[in-house]
């Protein structure tokens, strides 16, 4: 935490931390405390006065079917994004770690989508699935499926999941590959001598050994799906049709900036904060445990 | 050049006192070795002299000037670290010149000093390499070079050889000694290796548990160890110790055997006998029941126990030996080569 030897006390360390602390106070802690404070207020219909109502905003949320549905939707969305992107990444990494020649090439060709902004990922996919012009609806028509994510909620959800997972495969692939490459070769060779074929080795040796990485990625992917996919939703479906793709982050934005329900939006922010804190704690506990191995 | 005084020096971390009232006068140009087991406080003491650890109470002065409150850079010292502490991103030349540059010495003066030190240490051809391109021994030389160019009043060495392999260690030990004699700079050298301590130091300060056990020349420490700790620490193989009953200039060993000692004390005492002082003597008072032989070529170490007890004893005899396990050998010791200690305090009983 601190060096055994350190510089003598002076004003210097305060000057050094000042910029970061100032920004943290002004743009992080103050707004967060404001969000907390506002979550206890209700503004009257004309915006003329506010009333302190304790937990009423939260009680409203807890009984609001729209909010609960959004919660459930977010959970489904996050789990599916995590499962899809991690599954694809796992398979690709499993094959990639067997490659000796061209490994670098494959890695390069698989990690670049990390750099694509979520909203761009959304734009790419919404173009491919454009109901009148898109490539995929054109081919799906032959299979007897009519694609229109502007009307069909399930299709809209599928599309945002695809776009979100597509972008995240790169990240998961990189971490899975690194985890697999850190398994000592002798372990794999010992399994081969014991007569295990490639597929069996993968499921009985490699997969269990990289389970810490799987857990770590699960948390990271959940955080990603919860918070960073705003751009995708905003570009692809705007939460629609109806509310079928309104995940929590989108709802905070929508209720606050579009619906101007300050108290309700603030209460939602606080709920999200609690969720981030919980996920961060889980992630840190995990890191600690891994260090202890 | 300077002498160093340590006066009633105490170091505490919170309520724990780790160095207890250290006293010591170091003369100008002297090579002092601080030796002791790990955790005895020897590095802390050295770092206090360097100014890297604060002084809790007492006084350190260098060249007659109190330095307690001075920054390390103001104490006119140079230090060689165990892991060399070379700046990895700088070349050898830059490493050696860094301190001089901060001191704003003129460029040609810096160059002259670096070249000169490189000449002495035979590292001229490596001046433009990075530390990672050098072997352990070469890095060691660079670390010393960095100390030399400063032309300080005092050299401080913190176990500088412990990262080298055995052969290189012996070689570098000799070089450090020669260099120090040539430059005549007062030096303090910390080590846990008693052979290194004996061969390098003009005087040795033996530290144990934060106390100075003894401060003297290597021969004084060997011939008249002030405590059981010093007696056991200095000399290899280590001294044998037995509880003995003293009376009338004689000591009675457990399990029988009475030998003359040069002491008029009486009562219980700890008797110390160096393995190399045990003389083979068929009529001698000390019997060893042989358990194991270690053949070293020039001599043989006989490990065994006093018959009828479980007290171990080691003797060193010249040449080869082939005693079987369980056989008995007898030895005698000259009275002036016996050491007697107070069993309660561990201090030497004066004659």
């Amino acid at each position: 935490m601190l060096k055994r030897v350190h510089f003598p006390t002076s004003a210097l360390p305060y000057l050094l931390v000042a910029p970061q602390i100032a920004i943290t106070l002004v743009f992080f802690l103050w707004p967060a405390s404001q969000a907390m404070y506002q979550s206890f207020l209700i503004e009257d219909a004309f915006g003329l006065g506010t009333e302190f109502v304790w937990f009423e905003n939260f009680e409203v949320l807890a009984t609001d079917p729209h909010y609960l549905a959004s919660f459930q939707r977010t959970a489904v969305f996050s789990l599916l994004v995590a499962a899809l992107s991690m599954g694809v990444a796992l398979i690709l990494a499993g094959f990639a770690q067997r490659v000796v020649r061209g490994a670098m090439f494959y890695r390069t060709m698989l990690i670049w989508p990390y750099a694509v902004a979520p909203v761009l990922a959304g734009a790419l996919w919404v173009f491919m699935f454009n109901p009148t012009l898109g490539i995929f609806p054109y081919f799906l028509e032959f299979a007897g499926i009519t694609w229109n994510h502007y009307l069909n909620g399930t299709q809209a959800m599928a599309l945002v999941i695809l776009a979100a997972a597509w972008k995240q495969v790169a990240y998961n692939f990189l971490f899975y590959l690194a985890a697999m490459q850190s398994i000592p070769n002798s372990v794999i060779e010992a399994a081969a001598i014991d007569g295990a074929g490639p597929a069996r080795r993968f499921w009985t040796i490699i997969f269990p050994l990289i389970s810490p990485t799987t857990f770590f990625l699960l948390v990271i992917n959940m955080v990603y799906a919860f918070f960073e996919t705003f751009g995708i939703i905003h570009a692809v479906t705007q939460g629609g049709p109806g509310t079928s793709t309104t995940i929590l982050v989108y709802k905070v934005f929508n209720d606050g900036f579009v619906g101007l329900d300050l108290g309700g939006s603030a209460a939602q922010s606080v709920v999200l904060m609690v969720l981030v804190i919980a996920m961060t704690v889980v992630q840190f506990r995990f890191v600690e445990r891994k260090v202890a191995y | 050049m300077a002498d160093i005084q340590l006066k009633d020096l105490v170091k505490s971390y919170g309520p724990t006192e780790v160095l207890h009232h250290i006293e010591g006068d170091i003369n100008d140009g002297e090579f002092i070795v601080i030796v002791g087991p790990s955790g005895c406080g020897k590095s802390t003491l050295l770092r206090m002299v360097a100014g890297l650890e604060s002084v809790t109470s007492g006084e350190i002065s260098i060249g007659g000037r109190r330095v307690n409150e001075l920054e390390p850079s103001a104490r006119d010292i140079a230090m060689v670290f165990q892991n060399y502490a070379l700046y990895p991103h700088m070349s050898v030349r830059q490493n050696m010149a860094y301190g001089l540059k901060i001191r704003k010495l003129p460029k040609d003066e810096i160059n002259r000093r670096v070249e000169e030190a490189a000449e002495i240490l035979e590292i001229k051809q490596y001046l433009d390499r990075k530390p990672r391109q050098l072997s352990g021994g070469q890095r060691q030389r660079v670390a010393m070079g960095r100390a030399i160019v400063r032309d300080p009043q005092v050299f401080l060495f913190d176990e500088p050889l412990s990262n080298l392999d055995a052969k290189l260690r012996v070689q570098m030990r000799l070089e450090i000694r020669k260099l120090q004699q040539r430059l005549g700079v007062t030096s303090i050298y910390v080590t846990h290796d008693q052979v290194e301590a004996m061969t390098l130091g003009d005087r040795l300060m033996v530290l144990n548990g934060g106390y100075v056990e003894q401060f003297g020349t290597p021969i004084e420490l060997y011939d008249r160890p002030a405590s059981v700790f010093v007696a056991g620490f200095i000399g290899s193989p280590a001294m044998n110790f037995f509880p003995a009953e003293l009376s009338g200039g004689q000591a009675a060993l457990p399990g029988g055997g009475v030998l003359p000692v040069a002491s008029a004390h009486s009562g219980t005492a700890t008797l110390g006998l160096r393995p190399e002082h045990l003389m083979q003597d068929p009529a001698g008072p000390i019997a060893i029941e042989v358990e194991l032989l270690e053949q070293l070529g020039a001599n043989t170490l006989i490990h065994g126990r006093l018959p009828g007890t479980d007290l171990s004893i080691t003797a060193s005899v010249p040449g080869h030996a082939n005693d079987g396990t369980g056989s008995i050998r007898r030895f005698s010791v000259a009275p002036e080569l016996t050491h007697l200690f107070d069993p309660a305090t561990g201090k030497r009983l004066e004659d």
Partner: protein
Amino acid sequence: MVENRPLTAFLTHLVLILGVLAIALPVWITFVAATHDQLRMNQAPLPLWPGDHFLVNMKQTLFGSGLSGTETAPVWLMLLNSLAMALMISTGKIAISLLSAFAIVYFKFPFRMTFFWMIFITLMLPVEVRILPTFEVVANLGMLNSYWGLSVPLIASATATFMFRQVFLTVPDELLESARIDGAGPLRFFFDILLPLSRTNIAALFVILFIFGWNQYLWPLLITTDTSMTTIVMSIKQMLEAAEQSPQWNIIMTTALLAMIPPVFVVIAMQKLFVQGLTETDK
């Protein structure tokens, strides 16, 4: 690889090539769209092979008015805005994190742990959960529609501070002691020893933060109303909206391409640093 059977090797490469193609497909489609004229892009089925309008589209997108019939900034200005925002966010984060990590690791001073925890908490407050009040703060400070407003509220970073803290902790203590004996003060030690020693970490972090900064979406969307402050990533959404009236997919997809080229180029060109940065900041 333990076995060396041609069939397994073939299968391995086959799967990987299919993976690479599947991942690349959306960008291929985008690229193809950027190489046809508007007419062709309004006929189903859309082409799967590039046409010859790439340079024309590029020119119209970059220097023309972009989409016809909308009031937007020229795309080259958006690229410039994005570049400014990305550079300010990445260098700002690195600078303030280096300084605070240095203070926290190398100095013992009252409230040190308070500051540490304050920085730690920012980890738990992504912009998405404090949008409204942060917007109010920025509005009150008069920072709407400015580069400062775009970047400063995002540059406090616990992850970067932690990473540098980690890096500094692995720097041997003896280097500091040695520097002190050499007479170097805190700032001299920071600039002469610590910064050069951390330069690959700084570069790796820069790669990650540049991408992070370039790809910001929600925040710029909120605080820029002036079209001259639009970033390229934001503009895509506006174009998609406009596309519902008069689809000009060739222009939209050219813009999308332009928006993703800089960060993707950074990842590919600095792959080693990118991988290092990604693994260091998340652990």
